[in-house]
């Protein structure tokens, strides 16, 4: 069935046809395949980011550790932060968005399937670009002061310290200037980070546009906005957050790149630039970004909790509006990351207050989730346990967040492990617990098999205990004065014992994650087949067979209510308790059969070569910018755009199967793609 890759040049503009095998993945425009690729890539980077974290923890297990050298340590926490945020949590969320969004709104694909493939390829090339610093980076040691020509005029580093790991970007995930500027971070490591993030940003911007249009335009008949699952709402909110915050970081990254490459002076105090401007621009993006990381998980939890409590979501509308409110307020609090940077007192007070207000909508969500569980009939499958873990752990992180918003307290806390504790509680205890919940919940949707529940529960408990052992002590480490990003701490500080506990905790988490991986590999082959509706679920993605057929819905669904599938299966008795309809089992069986046997041919967006080609140009341009002073660099600055623009043209004139279908599908025209900077 696999059609082959090598086709005569004359037919290059015919669209590829493979539906299986390697080329089908390369050329796919199917949102499900794209989602799966996002998922695998993300977990690949999770291992990398996790191993980086473990290295950090080995170094810090005791005072004056000597497992890593300082350069390696600095590179490790930087790449750990960047990897976990941009290459793990964001792409896992993207995996869920891609896979589930069309299914949940009853669509056959997203609004612009080719653009969807394009953002996936840009994402993966961006991630690989970032790490390719190992192969293509200039091995100059990351220390010293460079003059305007880049020559190091002061500073010393033992050449043996310039190791592979030390050659990765350092400077922290927010790359504060001027430390990450041309003078104080000579070499190319930081350039790879800046341009890598720029590329990743383009990917996210494109998918944000795609998802917004998809949600607004591709809903099935009857799927009104307030009938959409909360997960879809959160997808929409996140897309808006991305849409409005990415351009800001794009500009900041351009400015920093120009500072480093072309000698501008935006953030370089020596030339009259203002380092604080970078902080504003970074956090204008950076704070919305943290809600970009958490809201998808909140959406997942809002699906899992009701299903496994066998109750509708308590306060659906409130949860939706609270999500939107968090996003909106989230744009107005960025300077809480800069409370000690010397901004005026009025501004500090104002940002302190605005930060506090976010606790209100977040609280609304928490209490509504509790209300959902209250009086329910809770089934503790692994997905549910992770969701409950999410609620419990996120609250801890949220509350420590509120103690940061007390500005003077933050003057003590900022840049200590107290902050590190806060953000791991919200990111790991929050985002990652939520995402794992989603994986256990939707694994059957993707593979048709259940993840093993026994292993799942062991995974949960090992990870839960390891998580608290790792990150709870960080609160007191921070209050005891352990500053963050510290390669060593003095024995006299009394920080040793708790740090050891943290390190043990980190390895406990790793064990948990390893169990998860085993479970994944095992269950993918040997897991119990799931059938159509393993959770007795509420939403319409469970009305189609598992694994999802390529065309999603054999017949277009028509939606009559929120939690449509549930209402197909259940009525309520006088007391308001659900009663399974007599024909519910028949219904499920029929859906399963019909879903696998469409009554008519279905036209799906065809695969295309051009997304991957177009994406390929970007990293080449990136290398070109970094090495623009060399011949190869100049050549790449020419070749990169050539490939991208060439692919763009190909994209434009690629034949569509049926002309009128072009309109119907609303395929991404070349111009929309070109507009993205």
């Amino acid at each position, binding site marked *: 069935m696999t059609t082959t890759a090598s086709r005569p040049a004359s037919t290059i503009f015919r669209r590829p046809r493979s539906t299986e095998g390697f080329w089908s993945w390369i050329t796919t425009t199917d949102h499900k395949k794209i989602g799966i690729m996002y998922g695998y890539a993300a977990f690949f980077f999770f291992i990398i980011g996790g191993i980086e974290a473990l290295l950090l923890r080995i170094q810090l297990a005791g005072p004056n550790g000597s497992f890593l*050298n*300082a350069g390696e340590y*600095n590179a490790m926490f930087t790449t750990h932060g960047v990897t976990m945020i941009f290459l793990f949590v964001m792409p896992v969320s993207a995996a869920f968005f891609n896979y589930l969004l069309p299914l949940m709104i009853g669509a056959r694909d997203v609004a612009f399937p080719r653009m969807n493939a394009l953002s996936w390829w840009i994402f993966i090339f961006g991630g690989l670009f970032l790490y390719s610093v190992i192969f293509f980076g200039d091995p100059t040691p990351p220390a010293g*002061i460079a003059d305007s020509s880049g020559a190091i*005029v*002061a*500073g010393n580093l033992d050449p043996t*310290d310039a190791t592979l790991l030390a050659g990765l970007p350092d400077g922290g995930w927010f790359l504060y200037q*001027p*430390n990450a500027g041309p003078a*104080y971070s000579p070499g190319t490591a930081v350039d790879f980070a800046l341009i890598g993030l720029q590329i990743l940003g383009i990917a996210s911007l494109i998918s944000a546009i795609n998802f917004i249009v998809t949600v607004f335009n591709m809903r099935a008949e009857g799927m009104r906005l307030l009938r959409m699952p909360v997960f879809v709402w959160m997808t929409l909110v996140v897309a808006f957050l991305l849409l409005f915050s990415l351009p800001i970081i794009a500009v900041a990254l351009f400015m920093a790149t120009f500072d480093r490459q072309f000698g501008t002076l935006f953030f370089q105090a*020596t030339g*009259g630039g203002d380092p604080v401007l970078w902080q504003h621009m970074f956090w204008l993006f950076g704070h919305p970004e943290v809600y970009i990381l958490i809201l998808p998980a909140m959406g997942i939890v809002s699906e899992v909790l009701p299903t496994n*409590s*066998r*109750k509708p979501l*308590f*306060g659906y509308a409130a949860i939706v509006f609270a999500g939107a409110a968090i996003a909106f307020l989230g744009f107005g609090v960025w300077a809480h990351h800069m409370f*000690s*940077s010397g901004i005026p*007192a009025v501004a500090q*007070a104002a940002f*302190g207050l605005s930060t506090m*207000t976010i*606790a209100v909508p977040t609280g609304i969500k*928490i*209490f509504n989730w*509790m*209300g959902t*569980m209250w009086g*329910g*009939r809770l*089934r*503790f*499958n692994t997905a549910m*346990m992770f969701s409950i873990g999410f609620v419990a752990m996120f609250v801890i992180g949220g509350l*420590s967040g509120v*103690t940061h918003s007390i*500005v*003077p*307290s933050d*003057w*003590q806390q900022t*840049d*200590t492990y107290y902050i590190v504790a806060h953000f791991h509680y919200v990111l790991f205890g929050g985002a990652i617990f939520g995402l794992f919940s989603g994986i256990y919940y939707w694994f059957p949707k993707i593979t048709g098999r259940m993840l093993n*529940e*026994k292993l799942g529960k062991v995974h949960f408990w090992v990870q*839960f*205990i390891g998580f608290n052992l790792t990150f*709870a002590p960080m609160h*007191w480490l921070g*209050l005891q*004065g352990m500053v963050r990003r510290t390669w060593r701490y*003095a*024995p*006299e500080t009394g920080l040793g014992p708790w740090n050891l506990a943290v390190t043990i905790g980190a390895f406990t988490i790793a064990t948990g994650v390893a169990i998860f991986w085993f479970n994944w590999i095992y269950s993918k082959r040997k897991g119990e087949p799931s059938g159509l509706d393993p959770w007795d679920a509420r939403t319409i993605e469970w009305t189609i067979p598992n694994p999802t057929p390529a065309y999603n819905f054999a017949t277009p669904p028509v939606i009559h209510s929120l939690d449509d599938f549930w209402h197909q299966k259940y009525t*309520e008795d006088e007391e*308001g308790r*659900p009663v399974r309809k007599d024909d519910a089992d028949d219904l499920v*069986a029929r859906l399963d059969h019909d879903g696998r046997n469409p009554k008519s041919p279905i036209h799906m967006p065809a695969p295309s070569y051009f997304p991957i080609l177009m994406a390929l140009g970007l990293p080449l341009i990136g290398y070109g910018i970094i090495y623009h002073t060399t011949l190869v660099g100049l050549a790449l600055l020419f070749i990169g755009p050539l490939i991208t623009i060439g692919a763009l043209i190909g994209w434009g004139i690629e034949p569509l199967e049926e002309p009128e279908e072009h309109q119907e599908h609303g395929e991404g025209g070349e111009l929309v793609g070109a507009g993205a900077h």
Partner: protein
Amino acid sequence: MPTPPRSTRFPWSGRWNGVIGASALALLLSSCSLIEIEDAPLSAVEPRGPFAEQINNLFWPVFWIAVVIFVIVQGGILFSIIAFRDRPGRKEPKQIHGNTKLEITWTVIPALILAAIAVPTVSTVFDLTECGDDAMTVEITGHQWWFEYDYPGLGIETANVMVMPADQEVCAVMTSADVLHNYWVPALNGKRYLVPGQETVLRLQADEPGEYWGHCAEFCGLSHSLMRARVLAVTDAEWDAWVSEQQAAATVPAEGTPAYEGMLLYQNLCTTCHTVNYGDASEFTNIRSDDVFRGPNLTHFSSRNVFAGAYLPYEGLSYDDALEQWLANPPDVKPGSFMPNLGLTQNDINNLTAWLATLK
């Protein structure tokens, strides 16, 4: 294909999950009581001056409010887990979609709590941002990776250890010579950035004489973790003595002694970066102000008990050993240090340490 309720399909019943969950949370809660911060010189919750005190007094009430909220939320979750778990015979739940009154309650109550917290927050912010009128000014300059202290008016320039009178406010006026740094002496106040090209201020005051630890808190490059600080609060009498000691010039060691040899070596090798003041009249005096090639002022080096960014010596390494190691290969001791390995012989080092000891 009917779907059986989950709990009958998987052996781990809900009860066990509840029990494990409860004990894990209990463990977590009880570990809160373990915050005993003895022997933690950098502790941020053991204030030793009015400003840190004020922050502390703001932090703990908020902390306890947070604990109460924490208990309520976790309690609610635990209760649900235990009371509403699926067990044989449990009826399907009523399908409740929400409750407006509850909704309003849990919107308004948090808002009120926050409003209550907000008031003291704002007033403390304004209290602590501007220095008092009779504060003594000390200029702090951040360098990769050490702090320089200048006492304008007193003509004193020192590094790593800031000496100040106890019970007297110091207004730290700060800037940076290179990248961002962040000055933090937890017992005396919160942090403030040192920004190149800009000035920031921080109020510092210690109630009692004593030695207080500090640290650079903003990542500032390779040896950020070794950029530390000390504040020495002293009695008024000790302060006066210290000032006159620091204002005095160093004395040239007797010719022929190792210290004299050391001084000559210094004149040869070290004056590109360091300053030693032997008095205006002395040919041995050298003053540097270049920011790139700038090391600490060594005129009163031996009056300080720590050096190299207050990193050396540390527990387990004596002062003398630390100094020898430092002179032998600074970047090895402190990665990236801008003081280069000058290829000194053991003899040179001995002479230099002898000389440094004369710089009281």
